[in-house]
């Protein structure tokens, strides 16, 4: 199974994603430059973390116009699994593949720490192998992760079970103290209506080996491998 890791100017977690997929997960990873228009037969797309285009204008606001994003949108529309991590999540919001927007963290500080992330939904390709309600220890590193959506959008997300991850303490409680950035309702990640596009601010790719402090992120990648194998769609989605 092949994972395409899209590389934008300013991506800096592209190699972490590649490493997690290729060397920890044991699947194939390939870099795809943002000016490309082909995903070269990939089964999964990762939009990695970083600071694409220097975060100019707004986070992800320029990257959404990269040529590869049209192909990513087509891939998503065909049901292909797309994971946006941190800046990748911000890009998915800007291009409209996921609803809402990011504001500056409520304390205006860049947060670089390990946080608790509760798995809210397991019916997405990226959480299928996780345990609902389990708290993953995942690193965050962002200045703009303060998720916002207008009340009607938020209600729709809740109604359709599309809040996939929430910041939570070790007991699984989504307290304000466990919320590092002020995100509405402690939202750390959401999915698309068809559930195949998932975006989250925490970095599962940086938490795939215990030597790194946590291996809790691996389940995100294992999930998509299991989901795709179960669906029997490996090698059938992208061009």
């Amino acid at each position: 199974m092949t994972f395409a890791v899209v590389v934008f100017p300013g991506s800096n977690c592209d190699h972490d994603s590649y490493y997690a997929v290729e060397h920890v997960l044991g699947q194939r990873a390939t870099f795809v430059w943002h000016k490309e228009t082909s995903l070269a037969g990939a089964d999964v797309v990762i939009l990695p973390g970083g600071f694409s285009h220097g975060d100019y204008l707004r986070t992800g606001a320029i990257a959404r116009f990269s040529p590869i994003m049209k192909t990513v949108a087509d891939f998503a529309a065909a049901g292909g699994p797309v994971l946006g991590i941190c800046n990748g999540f911000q890009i998915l919001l800007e291009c409209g593949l996921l609803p809402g927007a990011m504001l500056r963290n409520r304390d205006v500080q860049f947060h670089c720490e390990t946080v608790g992330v509760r798995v809210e939904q397991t019916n997405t390709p990226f959480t299928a192998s996780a345990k609902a309600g389990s708290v993953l220890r995942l690193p965050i590193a962002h200045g703009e992760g303060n998720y916002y959506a207008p009340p009607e959008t938020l209600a729709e997300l809740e109604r359709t079970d599309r809040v996939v991850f929430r910041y939570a303490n070790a007991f699984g409680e989504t307290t304000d103290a466990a919320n590092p950035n002020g995100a509405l309702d402690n939202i750390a990640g959401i999915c698309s209506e068809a559930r195949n596009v998932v975006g989250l601010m925490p970095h599962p790719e940086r938490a795939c080996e215990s030597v790194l402090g946590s291996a809790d992120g691996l389940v995100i990648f294992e999930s998509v491998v299991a989901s795709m194998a179960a669906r029997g769609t490996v090698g059938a989605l992208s061009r």
Partner: protein
Amino acid sequence: MKARVFVTLKPSVFDPQGHTIAEALHSLGYGSVGDVRQGKYFELDLNVTSPGEAQTLAAELADRVLANPVIESYRIELAATPGGER
């Protein structure tokens, strides 16, 4: 023709930067400062001839790129390019 575009967070959206700036001003003793909202300002040089075209084009650019309609609103001002007709 020049267009000036002012982008600000919608009133319903909390502005962490504006709030922090307000707190700094208060700590400097400027007690009469109420709320502060931070925004972005763009100057666009547009190769169009009529104010109507400039307004339409600037609005399109603001809608598509300069502002994120989920959280931001914008205001456009047109100005004659120096030496131009208007």
